[in-house]
């Protein structure tokens, strides 16, 4: 312990200017979080970086910089460092660096996080565990890689170069993975995803520890490169389509949580179909008739796969693409977007083909349903946190809550409320039932700096979702108007079945689907 404290004290003496800057920036960050609408500091060059939107990234960069600097204090690369032939014990050296980060970053941040919670009206004690989990995640995604970066480089220039190499590697991997069919639905491949996450975190952890223990720089760099190659290889070789089809088993139309039919493109009201030739991807607008969503339920379209059967008997499909489309009991039609590469589009656009669609669906059931009256000004709700009507958007409720937004299915029936809204040239009040939806998020992952998360519950008018841009006739948007005293129905979404349904339409051409969204 004595050696740990010695090194810690030496580092604190050496890096006091950076520590002071870090603490000052943390103070400014806390100030902006507490006064988000205050006038900005200034528009000078330095002032720009102290503005609300920049302060968190600057803070994160500074912490990473400080970590690398502190690790470089006893550089682990090369054989000329004075400390290498002194009786340093490697794990005590590493512990001293961790202690430094805990004392000058972790602890001040912890106190600021508790203060932000307290200031937002949330009790501290029940949320200490969550704050600590946030810190653990921040340590895993920021400090651990920064320690590894510092331990494998001997100067800031080398560290910067290393960071650029990591960034380029990530971009290259993303590009490569994007080329894999159905990789957009990679979240369904839970086992490979977990293996990759474990491999990534473990390799960085082992690299930093191994480098401290043995200072085998090239071996350690090789270990990280090997882990990177393994992660990319797993991504490229994972049969995403199989995972999607396993996670979303095919059901008969009668068993589906909603019924769908592809509308023939000639039923589309958009006549002036054109595609933008200079864009590499072409969007196909697929109009669907939907029905039979059970009351109190909602169906989420998670993914879509299109397959084209050509007249010569061949089939072609670019695989599964992600979607995020909600279908409520009142809905009778929806439009889906499906992107294909221009090269593929040009090959098939004029052919008369049979189009087959597969939809990956998740059904949610509203449980623990209750009515809540919207308050004047700020009001508290056990599930939502501290909320108020959004003064800039009458369709939304703004809330703050510890760590993450709640999963939510909300209904608003304007007929039961007395929220008068004057009709304008552009907007008319929505008179039908409207919905808001927040997906349930798991408890495990809480990232970021501020433990108080803000979110918006936006009620969308049904027609607003299917706005037709090229229709030039004067139209008025239907807008949901919330007001104090209005009752909204709140429920918790219970995830139900995950299923896959198949649809098809014959005798169509791809070019007929390149119009815009259906009314």
């Amino acid at each position, binding site marked *: 312990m*004595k*050696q740990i404290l*010695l090194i810690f004290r*030496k580092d604190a*003496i*050496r890096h006091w200017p950076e520590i002071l800057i870090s603490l000052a920036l943390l103070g400014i960050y806390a100030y902006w979080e507490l006064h988000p609408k205050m006038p900005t500091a200034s528009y000078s060059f330095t002032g720009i970086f102290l503005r609300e939107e920049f302060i968190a990234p600057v803070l994160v960069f500074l912490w990473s910089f400080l970590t690398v600097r502190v690790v470089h*204090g006893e550089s682990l690369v090369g*054989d*000329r*460092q*004075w*400390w*290498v*032939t*002194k*009786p*340093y*014990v*490697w794990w005590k050296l590493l512990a001293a660096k961790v202690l430094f980060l805990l004392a000058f970053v972790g602890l001040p941040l912890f106190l600021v996080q508790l203060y932000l919670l307290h200031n937002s009206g949330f009790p501290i004690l029940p949320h200490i565990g969550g704050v600590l989990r946030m810190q653990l995640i921040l340590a895993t995604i920021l400090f651990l890689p920064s320690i590894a970066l510092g331990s494998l480089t001997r100067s800031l220039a080398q560290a910067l170069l290393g960071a650029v190499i990591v960034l380029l590697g990530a971009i290259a991997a993303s590009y490569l993975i994007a080329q894999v069919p159905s990789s957009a639905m990679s979240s369904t491949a839970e086992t490979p995803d977990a293996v990759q996450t474990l491999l990534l975190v473990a390799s960085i952890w082992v690299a930093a520890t191994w480098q401290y223990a043995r200072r085998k720089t090239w071996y350690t760099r090789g270990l990280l490169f090997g882990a990177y190659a393994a992660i990319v290889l797993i991504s490229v070789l994972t049969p995403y389509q199989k995972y999607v089809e396993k996670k979303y088993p095919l059901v008969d139309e009668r068993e589906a949580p909603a019924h769908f039919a592809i509308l023939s493109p000639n039923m589309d009201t958009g006549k002036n179909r054109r595609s933008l030739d200079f864009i590499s991807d072409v969007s196909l607008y697929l109009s669907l008739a939907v029905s039979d969503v059970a009351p109190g339920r909602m169906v989420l379209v998670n993914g879509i796969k299109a397959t084209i059967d050509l007249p010569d008997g061949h089939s072609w499909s670019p695989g599964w693409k992600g979607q995020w489309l909600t279908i409520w009991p009142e809905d009778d039609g929806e439009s889906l977007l499906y992107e294909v590469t221009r090269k593929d589009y040009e090959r098939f656009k004029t052919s008369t083909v049979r189009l087959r669609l597969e939809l990956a669906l998740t059904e949610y059931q509203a449980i623990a349903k209750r009515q809540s009256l919207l308050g004047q000004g700020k009001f508290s709700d056990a599930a939502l946190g501290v909320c108020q009507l959004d003064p800039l958007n009458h369709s939304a409720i703004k809330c703050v809550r510890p760590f993450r937004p709640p999963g939510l299915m909300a209904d608003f029936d304007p007929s039961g409320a007395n929220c008068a809204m004057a009709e304008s040239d552009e907007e008319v009040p929505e008179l039908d039932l409207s919905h808001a939806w927040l997906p349930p998020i798991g408890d495990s992952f809480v990232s970021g700096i501020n433990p108080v998360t803000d979110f918006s519950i936006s009620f969308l008018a049904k027609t607003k979702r299917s706005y037709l841009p090229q229709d030039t006739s004067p139209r008025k948007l239907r807008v949901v108007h919330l007001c104090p005293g209005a009752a909204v129905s709140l429920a918790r979404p219970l995830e139900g079945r995950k299923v896959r349904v198949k649809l098809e339409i014959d005798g169509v051409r791809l070019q007929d689907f390149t119009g815009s969204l259906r009314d």
Partner: protein
Amino acid sequence: MNPVIRAEQLTKRYRRLCALDRVNLEVQEGAVFALVGPNGAGKTTIIKVLMNLIEPTAGTAQVLGMESRKIRGSAYTSIGYVSENQEAPEWMRVSALLAYLREFYPTWDKDLESGLVKQLELPLERKIKELSRGMKMKLALASALAFHPKLIVLDEPFGGLDPLVRDQLIEGLLERATDATIFLSSHDLAEIETFASHVGYLDEGKLRFSEELTSLAARFREVELTLEIEGELSSQMPESWLQANVSGGVVRFVESRFEEQITAAEIARVFGPVKDVVFRTLTLREIFLAVAKKEQSA
């Protein structure tokens, strides 16, 4: 007596370059062992292997009974290492560095530290980055001596230093490290001749010889003999005669296995009766030059 340093077949290769070639070496306790050789001979490499700063490609080395690959952490409480290539924490003051290091060593001698600071005239309040090269070496030596190490390893400690600083360093070393074994590398032969007890000669990664300085001095002689009849050098000269040449009736060579009676008998066998024979002792520099030239011609 157990050797403090023992190397067996120690080899270090950098791709095609063989920096150390199957070196066998022993340094006995209490010795002041000077490893000499030209630039690029492998002196720093062998020290780095012994200090576990780099790993050998083959062979083994033991330092204070420990496998060199396992030397780390607390092992350095017994070893003081000084190198001209070490990067010091430039931002620290001299006093702060000594105070910092003091806590790492259970055997740190505060009085010895004060004595060394005084003797080596170290400016305590100056930052290390403001020190001259000589001052930095003195600071490194002070911090390597103040904890009474069993072994002091110095890599080219005197290179580029002015004579006054060199003398101060040597004095400091000899006065304050009486119980330690000293292993140093140098290419300054005149310097080490004054205080080394043992010497090893490393050339192109090979250890040409390693022995006590007194025995080395005893077995090398320059021989000058005057022949009765002028003649050529004989092809029957023993291998131990180095740098042989003849000029007029005078033959000169360096005998590397000198024993007066045996050498005289060899001369009589090769040249027959001679008018005069003179044996002259050699300086360490002359011995190394003779050996080096022999290696070059080989």
